[in-house]
């Protein structure tokens, strides 16, 4: 049996309603934590679980929580990052749509652990209909005494708000999210100070991804050790993977960490193989900002071992032959895909979404897009290919926030693994794929 932690029971009719969720065991973790555990206990269980942030960077959640400055009497905040702007990533959206109360339950537990009495869900503005779902669920939770003053008669109180963003990808970066929540331009802040010391309104703040927070109730119900038993190595628990592209069954899957990539792509239980019987060409495994890998390297590591869906296995080989788990947006491309055109698409996105504060990102992302545009349309030169790599290297690592890297990695890895295709565009003075 495959493990379902986040998407368990979601097919139950009316699962998004409080009563149904409660009947299936929902909110039991809140009762357990608030009545029998201290905030430190909750942090400890999460530490034991080995849960790592599901927003992209994979930082250990329990450790991140322990950085929160508890030395002041200032209010603390928990912010749930529901901005989900990475192309190819749509798992948080699905989780909220199907299981809004699980997120709320996780918010209560996480806020309790952090000592936060106010929490926000920062939701991508375009998802107005999700906001209605969340607002309704929040209202139900208030009515049943799971939110508000003295939850379940304990001395813990929590106010939870859902706040729509303006729909800019950069507002998903945690400090830009804080700026946006404060009503300002969503420009990332310089770090340090980190949000754990000075975040929202200059107070200690923790920003966590939707999926991260939604994993907490299960950990509290079953214990951190039990969670750590699921998965493989330091990649514990389950992971939501949103799969799209040339596959038979696109969608959001909850997999146990460690599932072989080959099984994920080809088995009927998951993606059901490549559409129209075509051949697999490449995969971007963690949302568009992680390095792209060609078939041979996504199915097997450079050492010839089967590649698994886990932080370690995906990263095996580093930049040269590996990639990253990222946010879990699994983008599959078949043999008809033009790598230049698909890279152009991503580059256009990062160019459009750069906030424009740092010179290398502001100017470099646009420059890369324009060169790619020329190459794709048969107006490139051979030296443009090396120029692209050079620009990417100078954007990478020299910026305030990781959007610089997000823009540079696809360029560097596409050219690393598919250079011949870029050269063919230059030599033939056109795109030879013509795949529309």
């Amino acid at each position: 049996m495959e493990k379902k932690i986040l998407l368990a029971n979601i097919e139950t009719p009316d699962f998004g309603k409080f009563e149904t969720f409660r009947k299936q065991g929902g909110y039991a973790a809140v009762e357990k934590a608030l009545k029998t555990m201290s905030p430190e206990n909750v942090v400890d269980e999460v530490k034991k679980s080995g849960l790592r942030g599901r927003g992209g960077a994979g930082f250990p959640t329990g450790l991140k929580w322990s950085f929160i400055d508890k030395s002041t009497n200032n209010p603390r905040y928990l912010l749930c990052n529901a901005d989900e702007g990475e192309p190819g990533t749509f798992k948080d959206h699905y989780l909220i749509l199907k299981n809004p109360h699980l997120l709320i339950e996780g918010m209560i537990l996480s806020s309790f652990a952090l000592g936060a009495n106010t929490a926000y869900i920062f939701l991508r503005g375009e998802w107005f209909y999700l906001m209605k779902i969340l607002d309704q669920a929040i209202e139900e939770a208030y009515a049943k005494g799971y939110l508000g003053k003295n939850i379940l008669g304990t001395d813990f109180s929590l106010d939870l708000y859902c706040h729509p963003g303006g729909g800019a990808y950069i507002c998903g970066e945690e400090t830009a999210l804080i700026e946006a929540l404060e009503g300002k331009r969503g420009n990332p802040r310089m770090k340090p100070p980190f949000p754990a010391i000075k975040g929202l309104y200059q107070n200690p703040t923790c920003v966590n991804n939707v999926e991260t927070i939604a994993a907490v109730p299960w950990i509290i119900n079953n214990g951190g050790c039990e969670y750590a038993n699921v998965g493989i190595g330091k990649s514990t628990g389950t992971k939501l993977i949103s799969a799209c592209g040339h596959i038979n069954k696109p969608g959001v899957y909850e997999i146990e960490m460690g599932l072989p990539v080959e099984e994920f792509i080809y088995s009927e239980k998951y993606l059901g193989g490549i559409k129209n019987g075509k051949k697999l060409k490449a995969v971007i495994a963690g949302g568009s900002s992680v390095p792209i890998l060609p078939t041979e390297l996504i199915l097997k590591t450079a050492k010839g071992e089967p590649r698994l869906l886990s932080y370690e296995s995906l990263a095996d080989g580093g930049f040269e032959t590996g990639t990253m788990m990222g946010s879990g947006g699994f983008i599959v491309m078949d043999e008809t895909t033009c790598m230049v055109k698909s890279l152009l698409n991503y580059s256009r996105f990062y160019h459009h979404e750069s906030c424009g504060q740092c010179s290398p990102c502001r100017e470099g992302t646009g420059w890369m897009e324009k060169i790619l545009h020329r190459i794709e349309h048969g107006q490139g030169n051979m030296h443009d290919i090396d120029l692209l790599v050079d620009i990417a290297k100078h954007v990478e690592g020299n910026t305030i926030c990781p959007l610089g890297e997000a823009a540079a990695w696809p360029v560097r890895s596409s050219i690393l693994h598919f250079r011949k295709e870029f050269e063919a565009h230059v030599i033939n003075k056109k795109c030879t794929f013509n795949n529309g």
Partner: protein
Amino acid sequence: MVKVTIDNIEVEVEPGTTILNAARKIGGKIVPPAMCYYSKLKGTGGKCRTCLVKVTKGSEKDPRPMPKLVPSCSTAVMDGMVVQNITSPEVLEARKAIVEFLLINHPLDCPVCDQAGECDLQNLSYEHGLSETRYEEERRTFEKIDIGDKIQLHMTRCILCYRCVFVADQLTEKRVHGIMNRGDVAEISTYIKNSVDNEFSGNMIDACPVGALTDKTFRFKSRVWFAKACDAHRNCTHCGGKVTVWMAGNDILRVTGRKDKYGEVEEFICNECRFEKKDLKDWVIEGPRKISRESVISQNHYMNKNKPEKKK
């Protein structure tokens, strides 16, 4: 006090000092350039990335090197830190790249720009720039706009350093100006055709490192190196009244704040002093402004020149 070593020179500074300011304490060639940091404005820095340096040892306690280059203007020193600026080929390469990025959308129209001779970008590209551009694509251009009766904005030259935004934020009431849009289509603008006309807005012109914000009362009157710069003061009810006046004969062509060797004003001045007091009678002249021999502005001014002694 904490000890930090920059390009093999050790200096002691207050805890909390940034690497840039520690380097400024040493002075000379090892001071990283800064396009967006402005010591007189809170919260500036970190954006342009021209001041990136390499930290090869974090501190005595944690000697690990920092994994990436760090902005010296906003990274605090730690006791025992070791920093490389011009001694690091990696830093110089990154800086060259940053200059290239900054020049992508800058027209390099120095021959007709009022900032020529006082422009940080000009100096920066002279020292770190390439002699040829690798950029073949279309560059962005803008019409000039008057953002107030005294200030003209030439966005084409703007490098989006945000200094003027910080001036507006920190020195002026009823702020009407800031940055619109994202990425490389971001631009400085006023809020729905508002104009910038409060008492301290002129300081944006002084803070602007390039010629994007110019003084309409001075535009095209003279190249700065032809003007005679004198420190002057007057009794002012709005500001300290300490300025530099720029003259041709006895005509005052321009009034600015007094700038230090890093191009930052010592004190902000009000618009009345800057734009309205153009008569010699308005001012008490203190004497010629000392300008560094290295600056182009010192051209044609042979102040205090010591002739080398004849060898016997």
